[in-house]
């Protein structure tokens, strides 16, 4: 283990380390803590400039009620859910199929297809922007949930395919072969043998991609213009324009927008990190 475990160090070092942990956490998350504090402040506190001191009253319920009652935040939140969930399911489904093809079939273009999927995942969004916008308009999907869903499925397929391919490569070939010997069709092999085995990978991937899509801001700006479709990221920044001085309200909105991916992260931390650090340990 590196650095050396402090278990064998002096009592002083141990105590100092344990005290330093919460202090560094506090410093690291200070900007965030401030937002959470502000989201429960009263408007009087805000007007008097009491941003960083102790709140004079705790308006937790009032502020969060107000976010949902007097702004479109509820609608934005719903839109994000309506966009993110189908997009995650679509991307994961398509990439499991493609990942299986790249992992378990040897064909000439294999490595090139993999390269295209990985490379496409790294391109700047701007090079896609105008054609994707035109395409979405000509498909009649501009300013609809479906327009965003389609793009996210297509784009995330790149990363997802790499992820699923790397997972499926590790499955034993013997399993597939013995099925083939028995005359099982290739699709049935996929459906009945591969799919049950990749379930843990599907969970990890879904959590990760959910966060990516939920937090998208650029495409929400480019492909959407009305409140009935706008997801929570773009919604929050339009809220910022409308409620300029009501920082308590805006920060409550920010907390609401951040909550779903954060909850998912803490609930499925292990999966999330496994997905994100893919390749960090092997050369």
């Amino acid at each position, binding site marked *: 283990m590196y650095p050396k475990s402090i278990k064998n160090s002096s009592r002083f070092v141990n105590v100092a380390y344990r005290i330093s942990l919460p202090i560094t956490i506090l410093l690291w998350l200070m900007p965030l803590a401030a937002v959470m504090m502000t989201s429960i402040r009263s408007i009087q506190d805000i007007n008097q400039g009491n941003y960083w001191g102790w709140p004079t009253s705790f308006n937790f319920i009032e502020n969060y009620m107000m976010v949902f009652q007097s702004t479109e935040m509820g609608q934005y939140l719903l839109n994000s859910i309506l966009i993110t969930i189908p997009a995650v399911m679509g991307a994961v489904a398509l990439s499991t199929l493609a990942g299986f093809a790249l992992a378990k079939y040897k064909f000439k273009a294999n490595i090139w297809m993999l390269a295209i999927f990985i490379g496409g995942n790294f391109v700047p969004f*701007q090079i896609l922007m*105008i*054609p994707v916008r035109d395409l979405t308009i000509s498909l009649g999907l501009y300013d609809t949930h479906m327009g965003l869903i389609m793009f996210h499925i297509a784009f995330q397929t790149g990363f997802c395919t790499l992820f699923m391919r790397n997972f499926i490569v590790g499955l034993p070939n013997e399993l597939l072969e013995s099925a083939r010997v028995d005359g099982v069709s290739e699709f049935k092999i996929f459906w009945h043998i591969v799919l049950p085995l990749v379930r843990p990978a599907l969970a990890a991937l879904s959590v990760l991609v959910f966060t990516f899509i939920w*937090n998208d801001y650029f495409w929400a700006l480019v492909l959407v213009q009305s409140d009935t479709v706008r997801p929570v990221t773009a919604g929050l920044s339009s809220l910022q324009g409308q409620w300029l001085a009501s920082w308590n309200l805006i920060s409550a909105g920010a907390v609401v927008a951040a909550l779903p991916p954060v909850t998912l992260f803490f609930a499925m931390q292990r999966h999330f990190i496994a997905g994100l650090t893919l390749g960090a340990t092997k050369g």
Partner: protein
Amino acid sequence: MQDQNTPTLRANQLRDKPPITRRRFPKQLTPWLFMAPALLLFSLYVLYPIISSFILSFYNWDGMGDKVWVGFGNYVELFDSETFWIALKNNIIWMLLFMLAPPIGLAIALFLNQEVRGIRLVKALFFFPFVISQVVIGLVFTWFYDPNLGLLNSILEVFGIQTIALLSSEEYVTYGIIAAGLWPQIAYCMILYLTGLNSLSPDQIEAARLDRAKGLKMLRYIILPQLSPATFIAVVVTVIGALRSFDLVATMTAGGPWGSSTVLAYMMYEESIFNYRMGYGAAVAVVLFLIMAVYIAYFLTRMLRSES
């Protein structure tokens, strides 16, 4: 591995399956059928648009009327424009300063790589900023920098330093946004290194300890070489992140004041969406793409080499 399997598979099929099935359903087609849906969507939404943007960059187009061929006109104008050079310079500053993320991430990972009670939660909390939307991060930092009520100025006041309106200062604004961007980026690098530290070879470390390797020397000669896969990914992801920077610029300053904090990604968006200059915007996108293509190619060759 599949190399060796294929011939046996073919032999099996020849034996077990009636020839008709084979002819209707050639074996070579199977992987393409599995890939078809993904490949179709990916081509439509990613591959074709890249080509299409390249072509568009040689035209003038307002998004509605006819496209007018201008050859390299957009590029000539671009290289003459002051905004472009400001954006490019800012992108370079982003890249250089973003390079702080891997070493800081490593430092935090080393600090947190202990087994004490509650350390799992501490690690999760350190990673936290990465999970939050950049829009929220932009909002948090806009506020942190606010000249009247921001915490930054309150702190500066305590130390008796002149307060500043960071985001309205042409000189400092880019640094302010980069600091916000570094926050989640450091978190990401940290988690990469924590994973790397978990899989160090204990034998090598023990052997080095017996040879009395210590501290920085140990880190430099024993630990870092073993962490090189993590470093590689951290650097690539950080460079790409710096070049992709859009969300924070858009939410914190919209490129201001007077275009001083713009980056290529934001400039492209502004020219196309606000100024209706799609062809010119496409030219900006092409330049950004070409810069990034260098890194993508580097990443791909290294990655594919390790695959084969």
